[in-house]
């Protein structure tokens, strides 16, 4: 049985009397890639900060790799905050080593590993360059290296794709997969659904400070019935009586939810009714549709707006 890297129960946090997070329950299995999905202001960052012990919850409990006090697990946790920060005058190698040292890694080892990480990722020429001479995306990459230099068991990334161009986003996805393949638990927050869909096994959908869904990505998608798409040669006829009541027509294409009884009885009725089937497909719902169904239209619109802004940066 796989243990839990993170377990939180009933986390509540208010700022200046306004509730930011109102009872978060999440469970992150060890070795998984876990996404916290939600629009801006949903409470993702507050949740991560409470999990890491940067801020204390008003109520609720959490354990991080078995520790009730998150700082006690600091040596085996890596954290990339949403607001990136590095000392501008430090060289890239020193910055990586310093972040490792904060987590108990001896400086010398940190320097060596920093140089290797830079070399492996095509940044070998920047080993002794000061942070202030780097682009924003590159500095963010350096901070990410600093997050994993001490080989943590758990990596927490707050909006890691934010502000990165497409190439660096791809690089980051690779890095997350590599870390997970090595047994590291990854938890990241995002407001871009396709990042979560591509990377995560499990997700938590948060909106307005509450968890609306927590579980496998496939379970979220299964909240919606698969969609059937049908194109018939014969527009009218007895076969149309077999269509479900909620079937929608767009041109000569019909779309409806797959009935619980399955496709076979319906398919027989279409054939017997002389539909003349030209195309028939059964498509599973995407995470986006699942998100709309779970979090609501307005949360989805906010997500899309934030995602567009990020894509603007990436472009």
């Amino acid at each position, binding site marked *: 049985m796989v243990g839990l890297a993170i377990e939180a129960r009933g986390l509540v946090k208010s700022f200046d009397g306004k509730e930011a997070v109102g009872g978060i329950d999440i469970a992150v299995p060890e070795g998984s890639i876990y996404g916290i999905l939600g629009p801006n202001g949903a409470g993702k960052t507050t949740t991560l900060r409470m999990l890491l012990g940067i801020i204390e919850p008003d109520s609720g409990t959490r354990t991080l790799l078995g520790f009730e006090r998150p700082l*006690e697990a600091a040596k085996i946790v890596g*954290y990339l905050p949403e*607001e990136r920060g590095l*000392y501008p005058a430090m060289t890239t190698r020193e910055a990586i080593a310093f972040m490792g040292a*904060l987590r108990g890694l001896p400086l010398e080892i940190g320097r060596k590993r920093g140089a290797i990480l830079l070399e492996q990722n095509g940044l070998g020429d920047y080993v002794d360059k000061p942070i202030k001479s780097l682009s924003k995306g590159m500095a963010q990459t350096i901070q990410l290296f600093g997050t994993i230099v001490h080989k943590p068991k758990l990596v927490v990334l707050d909006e890691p794709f934010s502000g990165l161009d497409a190439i660096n986003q791809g690089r980051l996805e690779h890095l997350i997969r590599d870390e997970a393949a090595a047994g590291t638990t990854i938890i990241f927050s995002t407001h871009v659904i396709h990042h979560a869909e591509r990377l995560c096994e499990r997700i938590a959908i948060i909106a307005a400070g509450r968890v609306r869904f927590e579980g496998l990505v496939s379970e979220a998608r299964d909240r919606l019935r698969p969609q059937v798409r049908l194109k018939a040669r014969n527009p009218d006829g007895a076969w149309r009586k077999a269509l479900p009541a909620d079937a929608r027509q767009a041109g000569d294409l019909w779309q409806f939810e797959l009935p619980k009884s399955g496709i076979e009885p319906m398919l027989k009725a279409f054939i017997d009714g002389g539909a003349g089937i030209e195309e028939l497909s059964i498509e599973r719902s995407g995470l986006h549709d699942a998100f709309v169904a779970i979090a609501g239209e307005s949360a989805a619109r906010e997500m899309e707006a934030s995602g567009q802004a990020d894509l603007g940066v990436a472009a």
Partner: protein
Amino acid sequence: MMSLFEAAWVIARRDFVASVFSRFFVLFLLAPLLLFGFMGFFIYAAEAQDRAASHPVVAVVADSATTAALDATRARLVASTSDQAFPILRPVPPAENVAIQAQRLLADEEGGYSAVLSGTLQRPVLTGPTRVDEFVGRRLQLVVDEARRSAALDGAGATPPALALERVVTAQAVGNLQLMRRTVAQAAQSLIFAVTLMLATLLLSTLVEEKSNKIIEVLAAAVPLDAIFLGKLLAMLGISLVGLALWSAMAGIAVTFFYHLFQNWVTLPQVTPGVGWPIFVVLLLLYYTMNFMLLGALFLGIGGQATNIREIQTISMPVTLLQLMVLLLAMTVVGANGGALALTAYIFPFSSPMAMIARASESPTLWPHLLALVWQALWVVLIIRVSSRLFRITVLKSAAGGSFFSFLRRKPKSAADPA
């Protein structure tokens, strides 16, 4: 999890290296030269100005014999005291009507006379406003009396020969020793005050860098806030000690090279502080450290609440005044034999180090120093703890987290302990 001191060491090392290897550190090293240079120049200029402005000139309207006698007497008195002690005497040939001449001289802008002395040694007349009586009048009276006495003795042929005091040299005189120990006490207090003052703004602004660079989030997620505060304090203390070591070395070199030039003019006072020089130097370093840590922890806490450099600049002035008030309180113990104010200075944590170093200079008793150092260390811990909790509550917008003295408890080992 790293221990508090391990974590503080990581923070301290980063801050120390970043500061010492910065080009601005050279300016920091030059700061005392600028400070003491400015102070020296200011004192010299003020004294020169004072000398010129406050040294009264008296016009002597008399015959040449009287003028010569007065000049000779003044010269003799000045040789035993100082030139400043007596008004300048400027001879003016007498006119027909001396009374009118005196009025004219007192109204003469160019001459700038404070008074006019006329007549003879047997019948001297001082003309001038009443306010000159206190300084000019009394001293002129002394000059005239002395001139008359000399003239009388010379006339009677009874002038005694010059006589030197027979000297019996002793190791020390208590009164003299007390005075010199007070000077040492004040010098030690001034040194502690000046170096801490130079670092006050640095201490105030050190957390602003982390906040503006957003690094505070990375630090706070990895190490306790207490460790961040302690690390920053230790780094600044290290920087100041490097500065002190370099300044001491420079002063030592300067003394080695230039002392022989001045040894005929300058005699170093033979003084030993109450606790003796070796212990005094150790206590000076310890009290400097405590003073720095106490005020530093306070300034770090105050500076942590500021969001930008402008706010730091705004609070710099009140903080400097606070330091000055603490110095003034500590100075009350110098030469004081007990009293409520002196006791307050010893006990009040921020004045305690400077008050106690003065005590080390004046008294040989050692045990109060041990007590004071423990007392001051407790306050350092308390202020760091309060500052970090305040930072957590107001800046990180978090509940304080954990009990106030949780750092004293040993943490239970978890099954998943990474160590």
